[in-house]
């Protein structure tokens, strides 16, 4: 029964997504198009986050530690 609960929950989430973005009212081919675009955009966002955010976080951390730590930090 657990698998059924999980499947129902996932279906419910999918249904909420359809309702919120108003793709519930679209015809099937329009829905496919919309899903493709959404998934593509979402994948691009995830990829960009994966590539860029760790580097930015590390640089920001270094910048702030330089201000609050000590000035004589040797730079290579």
């Amino acid at each position, binding site marked *: 029964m657990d698998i059924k609960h999980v499947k129902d929950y996932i279906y419910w989430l999918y249904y909420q997504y359809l*309702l*919120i*973005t*108003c793709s*519930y*009212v679209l*015809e099937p081919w329009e829905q496919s198009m*919309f899903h493709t675009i959404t998934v593509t955009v979402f994948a691009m966002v995830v990829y960009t986050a994966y590539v860029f955010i760790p580097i930015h976080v590390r640089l920001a951390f270094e910048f702030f530690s330089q201000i609050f730590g000590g000035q004589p930090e040797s730079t290579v």
Partner: protein
Amino acid sequence: QKNGVSNGTLYKKTFIEHFEQAPMYVAVLTFLGFGVGTVFGYLRDFMRAWGLEKRNVAAEREEQKDFVPLYQDFENFYTRNLYMRIRDNWNRPICSVPGPQFDLMERVTDDYNWTFRFTGRTIKNVINMGSYNYLGFAETDVNALKTVTIELQKYGTGICSTRQEMGTLDKHVELEKLVAKFLGVEDAMVFGMGFATNSMNIPALVGKGCLILSDELNHTSLVLGARLSGATIRIFKHNNMQSLETLLRDAIVYGQPRSRRAWRKIIILVEGIYSMEGSIVRLPELVTLKKKYKAYLYLDEAHSIGAVGATGRGVVEYFGMSPDDIDVLMGTFTKSFGAAGGYIAGKKDLVDFLRTHSHSAVYATSMCPPVAEQIIRAMKCLMGLDGTTQGLQRVRQLGKNTRYFRRRLHEMGFIIYGNDDSPVVPLLLYMPGKIGAFARRMLEKNIGVVVVGFPATPITESRARFCVSAAHTREMLDTVLNALDELGDFLHLKYSRYSKSSHPELYEETRLE
């Protein structure tokens, strides 16, 4: 969010109205939904314009393409692209009396709601939460309709004349006397159609040089009548007496726009119960304002006559006021009396004036006799003149049903608009995708509801409107409430932040120490 008693001595009982705002993310997602719909609408229009898709809308003939365009395509953008997709939830043909339950004709569509076809089957015993059958007088019980059948056999159905020519029957005179007695006024006049009562009589009462102060959310019939009259129209915020007072003061101080003369007449147009919001007019404050600034009051009790008040006499009785304070009492028989038509009641001079000067009296066919008899029997039942207490029981049952329904919906966590005593219950849906989903799923559960979307309501506030009836039994209401509970969880509609289930400690009602 809750309006308490503002002026303690004017209101004899507490006046509680709810207009809760949903969390901000709901408005954002609603606009997002409309945005997606619009983008796809443009796409489909593009495909239709370039011939990639069949055109289903009206278009001119080939020979007329060079003429001035007959059909403005963009104006119907919303209808064509958004309304059409969920159109199967409206205009559903029913094939029985619209009582507490009714039968629907089943229809299916093969091309996404552009055309429908009937399968021939009927869906039986759908619970009716959309008809304005407040007191349950829309019935087919033979005993109840005995007098109506007699009158039908005596008079037939056609009048074939207007009131001023040969269309005034003794039935009309009897009905008008009864209406006047019911409301406690001097005289009344009845018309064949409720919408036409407003739109044809307001032009007879006001004209150029007069000022009309009309509520923001007034019905189209009032707006049409006001525009037809040629008077200046100013709008005050919905049920907001401060806004109205500002407008009244400005009108009296500054007079007419260019000539600065005093206005010939100032008339305030309000409704008893506003059907899209479920709110009740603030009549005591309104009457004090009207007396202070010497304006006239036109009260449209289309939804409130029969539905509120201890004996069903409308908002005037609900607030415990005297009908002499209101200059023009208007109402319709379509809602609580199960008939058709409207009335205007007030002082004898006013009604005599309308008998000669109203457009409806001169040109429109008068009410047909069986319908008049239905109103007479319903009114006699309400007043107790038929010897039973059935009328009073119906009014009380409606009050009980209304309070129960609203209380349970609040407890469940839905956002409901309106006054606690109004039988019109709007349940907010907000997102356009949910409008279609809600109506379809409720029909699958055998409950018929009316959903309303953009042009009739503000764009972010689409809603489902329930009309509680005295004919609904507790079981029917429980069925509907359970279905709503399930559907509310499935569609995620329980936006209220003040539901009792989420803050049980704030709502301790009785403490039995």
